[in-house]
């Protein structure tokens, strides 16, 4: 097996898929990239058994097809140091698995592993498929990913719930304290389906989709999902289990509606929360007529902050506490000039919604649960 490739091109593709590799693996072969040379096409793969990513790399010249597993760390570190130069790989894929790399005046030798040891990429059987614009998927992931949970006892909530129907397409994420529902009406599927995608492949997709402007082909069955776009594809195992009935917790009617400019609101919360307890980040929201007062305190350090903002408000005066970190994350993701915070009672969910969203086919709902206030 022999090929010549541009160092920057190879590095870029390796870095694009390298995020899949775990820092510590029980199976040593997973510390490697799989290189498969087929005529004049080179594909590289990385896997953690749950998720496998593959990228195509343009090569300058190739001889003798073959495949080999190359240790990822040493390869990445070497490639990072090169300027853009052609690199020649000469590999014995049969017995010694020795890899010789020629770059400029340098010659480097390392030992790879038999490509047969690398876990086989699963193939999707009895799958359904659809095509969606890259930027829609990217938006959906960006909007929901932060709200996923980390609780090992509830694995379903560590992923993003995807629902396809003939009317729309919905992404939902929640950790039981906050919830995001991102719905698009400009994107439909002939058949209804739902599955839970794990956090890790979504993080990988998020990074790559930002630079693509084509369509993503999505294939799925009951156990796996497959994404293909540009020079990449990704296959991941779905999270098995029943997603909680999230619709039941979204309040149908929250009569107290607070409308406020997003950026000043965000900046005020950011400032006030510096003075809150740094483990719980609790900030008190008090609405009195057209005035919103934000306050926070950290008794351990005698820190205290209070800030007043004007807002539009319809409903009864009320006081409610939130974890400011959640509200800030949400305000950072919403892009409209104004937002609306809909509330009902101090111990019930608040809804944060964009106001006058220019994208009419986008329906974004963010729900944040309050913290109990000490009266």
């Amino acid at each position, binding site marked *: 097996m022999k090929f010549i490739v541009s160092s920057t091109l190879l590095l870029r593709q390796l870095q694009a898929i390298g995020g899949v590799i775990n820092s510590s693996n029980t199976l040593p072969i997973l510390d490697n990239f799989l290189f498969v040379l087929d005529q004049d096409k080179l594909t590289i793969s990385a896997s953690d058994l749950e998720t496998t990513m593959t990228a195509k790399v343009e090569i300058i010249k190739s001889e003798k097809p073959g495949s080999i597993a190359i240790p990822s760390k040493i390869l990445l570190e070497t490639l990072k140091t090169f300027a853009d130069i052609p690199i020649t790989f000469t590999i014995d894929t049969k017995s010694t698995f020795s890899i010789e790399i020629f770059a400029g005046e340098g010659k480097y030798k390392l030992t790879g592993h038999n490509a047969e040891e690398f876990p086989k990429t699963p193939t999707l059987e009895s799958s359904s498929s659809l095509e969606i614009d890259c930027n829609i998927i990217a938006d959906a992931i960006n909007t929901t990913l932060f709200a996923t949970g980390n*609780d090992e006892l509830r694995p379903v909530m560590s992923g993003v719930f995807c629902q396809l129907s003939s009317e729309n397409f919905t992404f939902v994420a*929640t950790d*039981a*304290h906050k*919830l995001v529902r991102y719905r698009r009406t400009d994107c439909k599927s002939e058949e209804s389906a739902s599955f839970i995608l794990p956090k890790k492949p979504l993080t990988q997709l998020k990074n790559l989709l930002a630079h693509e402007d084509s369509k993503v082909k999505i294939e799925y069955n009951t156990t796996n999902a497959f994404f293909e776009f540009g020079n990449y594809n990704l296959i991941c195992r779905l999270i098995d289990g029943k997603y*909680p009935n999230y619709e039941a*917790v979204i309040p149908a009617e929250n009569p107290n509606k607070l409308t406020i400019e997003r950026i000043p609101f965000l900046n005020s919360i950011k400032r006030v929360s510096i003075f809150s*307890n740094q*483990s*719980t980040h*609790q900030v008190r929201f008090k609405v009195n007529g057209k005035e919103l007062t934000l306050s926070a305190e*950290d*008794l*351990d350090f005698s820190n205290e902050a209070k800030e007043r903002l004007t807002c539009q408000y319809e409903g009864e005066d009320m006081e409610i*506490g939130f*974890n400011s970190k959640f509200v800030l994350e949400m305000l950072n993701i919403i892009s409209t000039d104004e937002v609306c915070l809909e509330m009902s*009672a101090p*111990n*019930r*969910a608040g809804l944060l919604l964009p106001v006058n969203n220019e994208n009419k086919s986008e329906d974004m709902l963010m*729900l944040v*649960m*309050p*913290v*109990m*206030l*000490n*009266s």
Partner: protein
Amino acid sequence: MTIDAKQMEKQIIHMDLDTFFVSVERLHNQKLIGKPVVIGGTSDRSVVASCSYEARQFGIHSAMPMKMARNLCGDVIVIRGDMEEYSKYSKVVTEIIAEDAPLFEKASIDEHYIDVTGMDRFYGTLKWSQYLRKRIIRETGLPISMGLSVNKTVSKIATGEAKPNGELYITNENTQPFLFPLSISKIPMIGTKTYQILRSMGISTIRTLAQIPLEMMEKVMGKNGIIIWKKANGIDTTPVIPYSERQSISTETTFETDTIDIHHMKNLLISMVEDISFQLRKKGKLASCITVKIRYSNFDTHTMQRHIPYTSFDHILIKNTQELFERLYTRRMLIRLIGVKLSGLVGGTHQVNMFEDTPEMLNLYMAMDKMKKKYGSHAVERAVGMRERRE
């Protein structure tokens, strides 16, 4: 060398409230003054937590079983004690010290160390400390003794010698003349066991102890031997560690008679957790670590802890406590004591969970806490715990 030594020389004050619990009780009930009083559980199995000087004349001392105390003095007045009340007074004392002192450590409910090194450039340290002591006595009405010296150990011994209600100043030059004639039992850290070992070696005064070769002390008592020897020579470099808010809430129950009644213990745990989780909510705190402790009848003590997401809710804490207890109590042996501790505390209130917490339950907690705040922490509680408490 002398300049260095001078710069190194510290000035540490040790303040100790005399018979603290008894003094607080005497503030509330003047009739107790001049009488033998002990604070502690009223049952035979409990121990003396504090005793008045009058009681000490009968040979009563703290940590003595109540039964023995009663035997020594038939007229002794036993008071159940109210830790909450004592904490309140202790806090007042700490606040007074905090107002004036540059650096202080709250070593226990009735003891404080204050580092006044370098203060003599502005005030006389002795004068300053005398003023502080008088202020505490004036504002709280509690007797307090004080020792001022070059390190924590000597100050503490000095306080011990100054009691009751006195003060003692030991300069660097006087450290050894002061320590040497005293009994070794005056050194903090020397308990009954160590005392017996040292006495069996023929050591009775600090002077003798200080002259024992260091190697020999190490051989007999290991690392602690070195520390004790240093203390005997008036050497102690441990710093005064600034006072900080306590970071755990705990409770323990010692049974009247050792028990293996699991059902009873589990129910008792419920009532104990209810108690401390209410304290938690009252203080506006959340806990992230829960520890269960059991002591078997042979005094073997075992603990087990678990980290949980921040919470202050009874039902979550109770569930975790019971699970921990079940895992911890595996030997079918009589149990003497059970305890629960909540730690990893942070300021804050419960974050509502959209799937687990119903508005009805949140309202219930708020209503219960309101009642408890108004009518006391036992105004409303779970029926299982209530019965156990009565039994």
